[in-house]
């Protein structure tokens, strides 16, 4: 398996910069996901790695080989990059059977019939589609087409696997199931994978590392948990779920003994402790992020370490697994997720609290 390296990769469409100075290294056998809102340049980045689009700036290497260098005008066409790709539309050729679709990459490489037969059936078995081999491919469901597309991408053992929103055409239940199956397959084969999605939970569940993109630029690269719990900027923080973002001023900053810093912050009508990735001088403005599931509702007046707010319950929505509660405080309305069993009374005066390691500050 090979690594993929992008150095200052840029793509312009006329005056529009679709991808702007992207630097990324996908290690051998790693599963990396490009995540971001629509139009942020995920597909363009993937297609540049695939060689379906030429980068207008920077350099792309696969393994030890440079495959595209804009400055030197060097470009290896897609068919010689030894990549597997799964398209968003699956791109299953409708004039061929399932078998012929999967066999195509091998036939192009002029393998013997015996080898083709063995490897295609192996690939189909991998995705549990061997009983469909002789089906004409238009007679497949969305999920089956997706499996065929994966089998086709894997059959010639590519260096790297590229996937562009492969699950977005499936329904919610199938999406989770196929995602988990695919992750298992990837870990078993240890194949380097670059995956594009705009679904946050999919990205977190599947990847070793997530790349958050916005406006053609990379905002942050990190393990799913890091990105979710310790975002580097307000934008990344706001991208996942619906966190509470509060304006505050730093009173005091000290190392917490580990990798991070502990801050004393003060907002409008509240104060307390939180964490940050970097040292932030006293007096600086910060945004404190607290996720709804980490907030607890207690009796009025009760307080411990961390952060706490006094307020009054203004709204409660039953959502099945949990209950969304809105608490009006002196600063702003907080969004809290509580277990749905707990009963809440609208208008009740309460204290909302969060432990200090669930509150994360970024410079605003």
């Amino acid at each position, binding site marked *: 398996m090979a690594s993929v390296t992008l150095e200052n990769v840029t793509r312009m469409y006329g005056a529009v910069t679709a991808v702007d100075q992207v630097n990324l290294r996908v290690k051998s056998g790693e599963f990396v996901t490009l995540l971001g809102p629509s139009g942020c340049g995920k597909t363009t980045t993937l297609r540049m790695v*695939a060689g*379906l689009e030429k980068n207008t700036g920077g350099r792309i290497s696969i393994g030890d080989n440079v495959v595209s260098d804009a400055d030197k005008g060097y470009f290896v066409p897609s068919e010689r990059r030894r990549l597997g790709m799964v*398209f968003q539309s699956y791109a299953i*050729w409708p004039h061929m059977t399932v078998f012929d679709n999967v066999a195509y990459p091998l036939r192009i490489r002029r393998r013997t019939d015996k080898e083709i037969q063995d490897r295609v059936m192996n690939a189909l078995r991998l995705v549990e589609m061997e009983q469909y081999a002789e089906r004409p491919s238009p007679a497949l469901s969305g999920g089956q087409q997706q499996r065929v597309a994966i089998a086709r991408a894997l059959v010639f053992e590519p260096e790297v696997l590229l996937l562009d*929103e492969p699950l977005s055409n499936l329904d919610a239940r199938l999406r989770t199931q196929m995602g988990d199956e695919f992750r298992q397959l990837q870990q078993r084969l240890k194949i380097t994978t670059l995956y594009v999605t705009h679904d946050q939970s999919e990205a977190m569940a599947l990847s070793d590392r997530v790349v958050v993109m916005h406006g053609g630029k990379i905002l942050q690269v990190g393990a799913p948990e890091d990105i979710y719990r310790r975002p580097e900027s307000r934008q990344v923080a706001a991208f996942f779920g619906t966190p509470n973002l509060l304006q505050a001023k730093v009173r005091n900053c000290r190392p917490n003994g580990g990798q991070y810093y502990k801050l004393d912050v003060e907002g409008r009508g509240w104060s307390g402790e939180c964490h940050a990735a970097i040292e932030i001088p006293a007096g600086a403005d910060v945004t404190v992020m607290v996720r709804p599931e980490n907030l607890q509702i207690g009796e009025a007046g009760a307080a411990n370490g961390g952060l706490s707010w006094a307020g009054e319950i203004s709204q409660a929505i039953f959502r099945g697994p949990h209950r969304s509660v809105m608490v009006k405080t002196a600063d702003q309305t907080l969004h809290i997720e509580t277990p749905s069993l707990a009963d809440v009374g609208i208008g009740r005066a309460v204290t909302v609290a969060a432990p200090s390691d669930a509150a994360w500050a970024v410079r605003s």
Partner: protein
Amino acid sequence: MTIIHNRSLDDIAETGPTLGGNAVTRAFSGGSIGRLIGMLALIAILGFLTIYPLAMLLYGSLHSTPPGLAGEFNLNGYRAIMTTQNFLVLINTVGISLAKTVPSLTIAVFLAWIIARTDTPFRGTLEVLITLPFFIPPILTAMAWGMLGNPQVGVINLVWRSISGSPDPLVNVYSYGGVVWHMCQYSIPFLFLFTVDAFRAMDPSLEESSRMCGASRWTTFRKITLLLMLPVLTSSFMLSFIRGIESFESPLFFGLPAGIKVITTDIYESINHRATPDYQYATSLSFAIMGLMFLLVIWQWALLRGKSFQTVTGKGFRPNVMELGPWRWVTFGFCVLFFIITVVLPVGQLLLGSFFRFFGFYTYEMLTLEHYRAVFSNSEFWRAVRNTMMLGLLGATATMALGAVVAYVSVRTRWRGRSLIDGMAWLPWMMPGMVLGVGFLWAFAMLPGPIPIYGTVWALLLAYLALGTPVAVRVMTGAYHQLSYDLEECSRVHGASWFQTMWRIMVALAWPAFAVGWVLTFFGIMRELSASILLYSVGSETLAVVLLKLWANGNAEQVSVIGLMMMLLVILFRWVQLRFIKARISKL
């Protein structure tokens, strides 16, 4: 709403409570009497336009004397066409059509690929230029090429002789090659219009995934692109092949002088060029060619059944334009060259021919405006202009109206008899203009005395109506298929009557298709020659007929003038269409 999903509105009107409206609208929307009258009227009209001439054709082929004379029934006509000479004619017809379809399709696919899939500069303009020859009446280009490629005095040969000094001509259009060459000029843009959107609509990831699998561009083109296009290519091939068999102008102009006969010119000759017209022979031959067409249409059906690949997916779709680098100027040049050969050269020849006293003698002293004067002071010319415009405007409107109604009944209602109507409207599809002309010749002659249609412009109008109906129905069927039933039903639910719904929703939404069809039909009428030449008489000549008569008298110079006028008209209409009607012809 899902229950009534694929039922038509009128079932609902029948079974459910009527939504709004008074007794009259109810009578037309659901009432059986109004519907019956409407259907009978449609059947009568279509019957007169298609079944009646067909029946008369059959009658004529079995009857020994021309229409109106006493005679007997026999099989002499069919016996007469069973000759070895006619076998040769058949081989010629099929051979020439094949010979023009194969290269035309190749070039058309190449052009379509250039326009739809490469970054060739000025593609939008090029597309308009490439498709222009489709709208030029073939009789114009035929005459222009007759002058360009004439072995003695054609411009090409004059230039060739003065460059090379050789006494032999470079080209001679009066040959098999000439016939094929001329047919190609019309076929290529026709096939281009047919295939270009298939290229455009294809999901590019189907090709890209082939490249990702390690296939080169060329392999991808062969194994994926072409095979995916196969259904479209097959149907265009068949269509073009059928058109080739029906073709009249090319073999008339370039085949007959060289003794090359095809079926259409043979029919024409047996009526127009014999001391006594042999009607029985002509009708028998017409019937034979219809049999051939029928077989071809059946074959086409068999080939295409269940073979349409829906390749448009929409999701994750991005336009895939191949970057050609410096090669894009080569493809650009190819498109321009095509335009020059098919439009600039013939139009230039017409211009040249119109300003010199005699065509072929292009010297300064020969410059003159006398042909323009002669044409503009010729009352026959003006009458032909009036006739053509009148027939074009009226014919296109009537054809499209009929097509819109037939398509509506067959697509959007469940009325009994709708497949009969559909079938009747489709019949002329198998009849070349020549054959339909012969059929109508008999049909009009057999009408009872007090209905004097034969010899008037109405004869032509009826023939055009019949010839245009299949295309009109096709265009409108396509348009209706794209309008969901919800639109119609929603209007009814919100209180509009059937008529109001038709007018405000259906007409409002379907009119772009109607307009495109109208323009197509109008051009069709303007270029129609083979039926007109049989059905016209003094006073009801069309421009195409006048052109042919002048040409036959050797008056190539005035032909050039009239040809130029027609070209102007074509360009004007095409411009109006491109400017004001956004719907695409090839989409239908």
